[in-house]
């Protein structure tokens, strides 16, 4: 395996200024963040950046020679799309290194208004093939695309081999299985979804019921799961619930596991992935610090000696503690699908 490939960028989440600093301090090459409104897919109360914290964060990252990406990755809604345009204007004004967009209307706006601004195609665009990515490059000069977490490693390689657009893949974090952006489960239960309102299974619809036996999680009245004493809990997202299907109660859609690609790092480097993304802008600075530190170490080790790379037990331990459901999976990357 030739060791000539450059190491992929480590792209880490920041939901707050302390999280951004934690990412930078622990070895992220790039951080991504969102503004405090529904223009980004982690529109959670109290999370994200206003003008002051964004400026301070960008100053901090640039001072340490790291990059900052602004996620404007929801779809502009209905009659008034000025909020989304303003968010792009603000990103350009803040001097971020790139903007992550999902909506092609917004890509067009950004390209027309700010010809110099670097654009990334969000995972919410659901582009899983190189034709879609190349078209976005042709039309809007997209420089990077983030692939949905549904492709196998072979399929990722296929995409990379047929495009000049940089490819970013997810490396760690909660899984969203429905070809990001096309899932209707959250809309079905609550009327709000990641693409429209920037949030899956919004907290205002979540109720925790503390029974004497079990902890129940309800989303807008729908029972998503029940956790027995001592059993690890998860986010009450519909896709990760346990449901009764023909008399059996089980994870009918997806298990509450976290993606962790550590074991595949040498292959990921080898096929020419440009960046590895960590999920979790909704998580705390402590999470960001621990995940970033661990992946930095692993990535550097895989870059140094790809042939002799093996996952250190300490890394797995550090990450499994943080993982949703405390189980980790290689996700679709190592499925045998062709």
């Amino acid at each position: 395996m030739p060791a000539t490939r450059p190491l992929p960028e480590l792209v880490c989440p920041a939901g707050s200024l302390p999280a951004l600093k934690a990412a930078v301090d622990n070895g992220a090459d790039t951080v991504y963040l969102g503004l405090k409104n529904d223009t980004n897919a982690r529109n959670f109360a109290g999370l994200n950046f206003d003008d002051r914290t964004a400026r301070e964060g960008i100053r901090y990252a640039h001072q340490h020679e790291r990059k900052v990406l602004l996620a404007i990755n929801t779809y502009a809604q209905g009659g008034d799309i000025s909020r989304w345009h303003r968010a792009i204007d603000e990103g350009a004004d803040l001097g971020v290194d790139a903007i992550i967009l999902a909506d092609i209307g917004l890509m067009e706006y950004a390209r027309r208004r700010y010809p110099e601004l670097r654009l990334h195609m969000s995972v919410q665009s659901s582009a899983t093939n190189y034709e879609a990515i190349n078209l976005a490059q042709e039309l809007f000069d997209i420089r990077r695309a983030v692939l949905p977490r549904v492709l196998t490693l072979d399929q990722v390689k296929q995409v990379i081999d047929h495009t000049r657009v940089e490819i970013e893949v997810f490396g760690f974090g909660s899984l969203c299985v429905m070809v990001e952006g096309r899932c209707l489960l959250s809309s079905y239960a609550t009327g709000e979804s990641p693409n429209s309102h920037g949030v899956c299974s919004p907290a205002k619809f979540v109720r925790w019921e503390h029974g004497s036996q079990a902890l129940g999680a309800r989303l807008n009245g729908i029972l998503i799961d029940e956790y027995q004493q001592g059993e690890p809990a998860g986010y009450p997202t519909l896709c990760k619930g346990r449901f009764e299907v023909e008399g059996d109660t089980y994870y009918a859609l997806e298990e509450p596991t976290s993606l962790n690609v550590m074991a595949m790092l040498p292959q990921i480097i080898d096929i020419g992935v440009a960046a590895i993304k960590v999920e979790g802008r909704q998580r705390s600075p402590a999470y960001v610090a621990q995940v970033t530190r661990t992946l930095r170490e692993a990535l550097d080790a895989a870059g140094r000696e790809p042939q002799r790379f093996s996952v250190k037990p300490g890394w797995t331990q550090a990450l499994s503690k943080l993982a949703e459901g405390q189980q980790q999976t290689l996700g679709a990357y190592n499925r045998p699908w062709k």
Partner: protein
Amino acid sequence: MRIPELTLPASMASLLGRLPATPPCWALVTTLNQLKKRDILPADMSLLAGHSFEVHVQDAGLRLGFSADEENFKVASVGDTPDLRLSANLADFARMMLREEDPDTLFFNRKLIIEGDTELGLIVKNLLDSVDWSSTPLQRFMAV
């Protein structure tokens, strides 16, 4: 600095539980107001105003009730059903505050119990996460 795995003995809880909770509660509220005044706690009070909160330190048997208005936090008796109740052992609260441990991780592990208004819980969690301790003298105690 790492916080050791430690639970206060039950005798402590029964002792502390019998003392009036007002002094620690007053200290908590005063600290919150001070942090807010100095812009260390970037609280958007409009999101918190009119709500009642309880911090339940399980192993110490302490229940600290307070409320918020548009300006400040206030000591308050919150009754049996505060709008938001956070319960954990003292060591886990300390880990969370010192950023040794992610609140979500503690929640997944059932060490942090959140009762009441889930969105309010998220607001409070995100508020605590957004405190930039590096701008304060407390920085050196922080894990990250």
